[in-house]
């Protein structure tokens, strides 16, 4: 096996294309190395982008938060701008695995691993993120929903293309986001359920709301029925509870031997959706 430390995203792409499908990009590596050890993948070439200069850093540019694809989850969770504008993103990123994992792992990687309830990805989901993807065809952008091709399958083919940055519009006035997690343990465990929301709430009415929940389907699932119900109305306790109930219409959780039966997840999903909405509301009063 060969290993290249790429100095830039274009160098990484060139190496990737040269390997013609036999190589793959590795950022944090906390998923890739585990998959290699478990015999799931056998790449002939690994292209390490952790030091690619143009993929580093987190910065505010115009009215957007730009997160380099090589930024680690720890860097994101502790970044002053992230904490100021999107504390829920800091919270979600700060929940993945353990501090050691977060010191290597990236948010882009958390999305690409396509685990439905990846905490970083889930916290990001309702923020309308845009992923910039570099391939032989040049640069293109993808939305959150477009990133998921199927259960635990990313739409990004990391043997032919790579995410270079994630761009998130800054919240405007009257906008707040949240992230909640139902967990058996804080560290080293996937959640039983997680839920993230973002709402624009002005003059006592919801202008728009995005509610994502997992693991209740492929990737972060939008609670469309709940969103439709809330839009235009007030964010009262009653409305948030009702929205929680309506979230069930778009949720199809499976039973997991460890992280909750389907019945339990259906029972507690409304609670978690409600709590996510409550956390948004608390930031807006």
């Amino acid at each position, binding site marked *: 096996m060969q290993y290249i430390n790429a100095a830039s995203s274009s160098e990484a792409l060139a190496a990737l294309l040269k390997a013609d499908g036999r190589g793959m990009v590795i950022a944090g590596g906390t998923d890739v190395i585990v998959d290699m050890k478990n015999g799931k993948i056998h790449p002939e070439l690994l292209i390490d982008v952790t030091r690619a200069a143009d993929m580093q850093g987190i910065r505010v540019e115009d009215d957007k938060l730009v997160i380099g694809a090589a930024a680690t989850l720890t860097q994101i969770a502790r970044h002053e701008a992230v904490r100021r504008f999107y504390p829920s993103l800091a919270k979600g990123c700060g929940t993945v695995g353990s501090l050691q994992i977060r010191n290597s792992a990236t948010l882009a990687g958390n999305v690409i691993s396509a685990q439905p309830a990846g905490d970083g990805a889930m916290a990001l989901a309702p923020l309308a993120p845009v992923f910039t993807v570099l391939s032989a065809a040049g640069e293109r952008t993808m939305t959150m929903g477009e990133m998921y091709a199927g259960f635990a399958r990313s739409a990004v083919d990391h043997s032919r293309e790579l995410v270079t940055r994630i761009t998130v519009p800054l919240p405007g006035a009257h906008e707040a986001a949240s992230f909640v997690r*139902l967990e*058996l*343990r*804080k*560290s*080293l*465990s*996937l959640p*039983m359920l997680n839920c993230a929301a973002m709402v624009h709430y002005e003059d006592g009415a919801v202008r728009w709301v995005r509610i994502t929940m997992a693991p209740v389907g492929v990737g972060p699932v939008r609670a469309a029925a709940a969103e439709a119900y809330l839009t235009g109305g007030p964010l009262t306790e009653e409305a948030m509870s009702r929205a929680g109930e309506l979230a069930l219409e778009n949720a199809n959780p499976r039973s997991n*031997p*460890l992280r*909750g*039966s389907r*019945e*339990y997840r259906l*029972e*507690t999903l409304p*609670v978690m959706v409600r709590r996510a909405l409550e956390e948004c509301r608390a930031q807006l009063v």
Partner: protein
Amino acid sequence: MKYVGQNMPRNDGFDKATGRGTFTADIHLPRMLYGKVLRSPYAHAKVLSIDTSAAEALPGVKAVCTFNNTTNKLWNGAAPMFITPKPHDPVLDQTIFTDEPKYIGDEVAAVAAESEAVAEAAVRLIRVEWQELPAVYDPLEAIKPEAPDVQPKCANPQFKNICGGPVELRFGGDPREAFKSCDAVVEYRVKLPRVKQAQLETHGAVASYSPEGKLEVICTTQAPYPTKMILADALDLPVSKITVKNGPYVGGGFGARIGLSGKAEILAAVLSMKSGRPVKLTYTREEDFTCSDSRHGGYLVTRLGAMKDGKFVALDTEAWMNTGAYATFGVDLLGVCGACGTAGAYEVPNFHYVGWPVYTNQMTAGAMRGFGTPQGNAVVEPAIEMMAQKLGIDSLELRKMNATTPESKNWFPFPPGSCGMNECLDKAANAIDWAEKHGQAARQTGRIRRGVGISGGTHVSNAAPFCVDYNTVLLRIERDGTLFVNSSIPEIGPGSTTACLQVAADLTGVPYQNAVMKFGDTDAASFDIGSHATRTLYTVSHVLAKAAEILRRDVFAWVGAKLDLDPAALDMSDGVITSGGKEVGSIAEVASAAHLQGKQFIATACNVPPNCLPFYAQAAEVEVDMETGMVKVLKVAAAHDVGRVVNPLLCEGQIEGGVLQGVGYATREEMTYVEGKGFYNKGFHSYMLPTADDRPDIVPILVENPDPSGVFGIIGIGELGVNPTLAAIGNAVEDATGVRFHEFPLTPGRVLDGLKAAGKV
């Protein structure tokens, strides 16, 4: 006592804090090979054919072993093979490899190769034709007449899928009769999970076999000498020609390896015998989780009868525990469950227990910290709560009024000891604010409810006389007066080697400073069982006492002869020898002079220890989220009567670690079986033991009621921290919610279901 009672820094601290201390997996020997195992993917199957030719042909492969080219002799890989006392016989139902695997993971073949990667690749090249056979997984299913037989040749022929036989204990009258005259009778049933020791160092061994018939094994066992005996018998080698030693350090055990570490030692040994080279075989974490002894899960039911003044009259308990595919400790554990778990803590004039070790086609269950006592405790303590509610008596007072006293007669053949449970109950209750916080369920209406619960209990301080239990030790004084002790106890974490040296220094009168113990090596010392049954400090103290007396007599005889003094008037303390109180010399001077005259002071002893019951009580405070069923343990106060503390810091450490294991047992940990796939919990990510950021406050409380049977009054402590925690937490959850639970762990799903069924949400 100069050293007993002091926080002497542990003698392996430097090694462990710097990473210099080696463990089995750190050992590198010249020309060493790496072993990997082929395991059955079926819970029950017949191997119709096995073709190892492709594996053998792979470059780098130096040996392939199967049931075709190794001995099929039957043995028991755990200490019962050689600690089962007559007239009983241990159940011998294990072989190195099998051609009829009985659980997913059962060993069918193994490979030794120049690297782990090559060995793994070779394992994948072994072609096996399997015929899947019917299997059974639950103990209550396995005892039904139509269930498939797990061990047709080795199971007790009188029963269905029973290992060894039911263990039945009686004391006093028949409870079934006595219940008729009780003012109140309560019944409590509970289902308990399998949980896993999950010690940080996985099972492993490095074995070197020499063609002239000598075997040396460096390994993770917590019982080196019994392991030596087991290997000798299983491989038909003379016991004298086998060396078993630890790393010298062992990364935890908690019962997982009282004997072979899974099968690491014997697998490495046969691979070394076949290849002619040293072989290292370490279990992956997945293998450690799914292919080595766990705690027994299963079903228990108890009935408790009492009079209206609270006096216990009768206790009758039955247990069906899932012992898995092989015996190991199955029979012994069911005995301890009944004895220590139900017969010792409270006075009950009409007592009965029967325990069934049931074979199933799952991973074996064996020794895990507490060894049946946590299970027995888990069924009796809630029954006491139920009785308290029925009689309208505070459950703390109910326990205290029935607690075993030094004068109590019970099932145990030895005096109970100093019996400090009531003091433990009071201190634990105090530390949890019992009076203020208990009994508030009816007053709480919010989403978050709190409650407190308590549990008492007992255990033993070693396994005598139920099992063979004895120690030997060798003491010697070096030329400069320093003390050297040879013992084959291991150091698996508790700091036993430090604490034992403290005791040795006070017993011999030789300074603790520069005293050394050589441990964990069967060449360097003679028989000791090792770390098992809470025995190390208590029993080693006894054999040290015997040897110290001999050593001192030897020193005083020599000094008396040389200085013309009456040996009976001599004393030695902290290295200073006195005659009638007057200083006559130091041990350094004496040893040096003796050496030049052809004398070294040595003493050996062999001793069967007495026994006593260690008492304890733990109280827990919990918080329950009524919307999600999430139980959070806020605090556990753990009061343990240790008789006489040898090293307070080490002693508290034992309690704290045990308590957190108990918290995991009560609220999160379980091995969940998925039919056709095996246990879901294959790693730390899928096994919910507590982490540093998810734990209650733990308050250890050391109580000292010196025990008449203990050296300096010492009572055992090792296992006890985990014994009553589950019951205390279950009682606390009932106090918080008004709902009693009958299945553990109290995961959110179970709790929410229970709250709904009781109409609480």
